[in-house]
């Protein structure tokens, strides 16, 4: 439905990403090019490096080799064994984690305006106005002055998404944001993400929810053993995968989940 709006220029280019934790090789030469119109869902076995991939993209992990460019600009590279990250580029990427990461000592509103005020120097009143509008849009208008411990898991994740959006990201990363939630709270979070998708927000999503993957993805990547095994439109990768490993994985997950 949104394919018409698909922008084919490159947004992210990952070249030969290598990442090890000590002796454990997690990413082993990952090459992924993402277009502006892409909504990429990354699937793969647990421990396969999906979180690591997103954390590297967010600039949270050092890498051993490879490089990433963003919007044609160099973003992450390795020089003399040290990871070099351009913090300006990093600011145009937002991320929501599996664990709740709202700041528990701050109200919902304060969580939302902290970065805009402290990083971008926005006025508190301006930021608050934007924050309230965003919260209302996500059905959280009444929660602006609540503290994170007064929210349900689904509300916390929606606030976390709103907090990231306050910085007008050009790319959003979601790492299993519904995995810690009670089943009845999953839909409200996925709904918010689908809404972002409808506005053509570029995203990379890690999820085990295959129904959701099929609904939101414009492209599905199956990652295992630190490399891309299969990469294609959701109908192909989820419906009739080419590779044996993908097929095995999809069968297993579908049997558990649906």
């Amino acid at each position, binding site marked *: 439905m949104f394919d018409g709006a698909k922008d084919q220029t490159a947004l992210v280019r990952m070249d030969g990403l290598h990442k090890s934790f000590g002796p454990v090789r997690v990413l082993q030469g990952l090459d992924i090019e993402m277009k502006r119109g892409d909504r990429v869902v990354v699937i793969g076995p647990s421990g396969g490096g999906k979180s690591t991939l997103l*954390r590297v993209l967010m600039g949270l992990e050092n890498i051993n080799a490879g490089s990433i460019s963003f919007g044609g600009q160099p973003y992450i590279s390795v020089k003399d064994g040290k990871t070099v990250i351009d913090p300006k580029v990093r600011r145009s990427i937002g991320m929501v984690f599996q664990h709740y990461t709202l*700041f528990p000592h701050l109200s919902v509103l304060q969580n939302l305006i902290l970065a805009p005020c402290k990083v971008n120097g926005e006025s508190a009143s301006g930021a608050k106005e934007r924050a309230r509008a965003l919260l209302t849009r996500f059905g959280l208008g009444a929660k602006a002055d609540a503290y994170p411990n007064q929210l349900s898991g689904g509300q916390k994740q929606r606030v976390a998404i709103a907090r*990231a959006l306050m910085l007008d990201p050009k790319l959003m990363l979601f790492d299993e944001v519904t995995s810690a939630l009670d089943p009845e709270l999953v839909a409200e979070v996925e709904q918010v993400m689908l809404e972002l998708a409808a506005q053509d927000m570029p995203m990379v999503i890690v999820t085990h929810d295959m129904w959701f993957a099929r609904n939101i993805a414009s492209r599905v990547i199956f990652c295992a053993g630190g490399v891309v095994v299969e990469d294609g439109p959701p109908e192909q990768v989820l419906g009739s995968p080419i590779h044996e490993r993908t097929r095995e994985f999809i069968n297993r997950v579908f049997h558990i989940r649906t």
Partner: protein
Amino acid sequence: MELDFSIVLRFADALAYGLWLTIRLTLICIITGGALGFLLALARRSKNRLLRGASTVYVEFFRGTPVLIQLFWIFFCLPIILGVELSSFVSGVIALTLYTAAITSETFRSSLGTVSREQIDACVALGLPARVQVTSVVLPQALLRAMPTLLSNTISLFKESSLVSAVGMADLMFVGQNISNNTARPVEMLTAVALIYFAVAFPLTRAVSVLEGRILRKLAA
């Protein structure tokens, strides 16, 4: 043996004076000592080895010696070394501040260690510079988490401050002991003094557990 607790009421003013000194001493020293203890905790977690070493020696020294000898040293040796007269109140404040700093630095040190890795990840993902991460996220959470233990530290200090009676400061302990000696009514007076300490300390110890529950629930989100 005949007990006459009305004697306690007769000396109520003197006891109130002593209690007021004890409270002032406790409040001043928990504030000055807490501030110093906070800096010590930062020093102990610093990357600078000299700073880390010096602060560790300080803390271990004050934790590893009796408070009474610290008091005596500040009262009798410090004036000789500095060559100035210090009022007994000032000496008491200095001694208990130095001691409280060592105790509270441990409180702050452990609370600083509890700010989770995930909170820092969230800061980085939001592009918060290191300085803002510290001032807006790490420190407020660490301070909040330290509050119940700090209140416990305050209660301990309130009780331990009775040691200043040994160097002649007219705190609650000193006043009570004096009256008890002069009236030969130790049972009534010393019991009354114990009850006064308890009456102040007990509600505070209850407050610690309430505060702890609230803060833990808040920070668990």
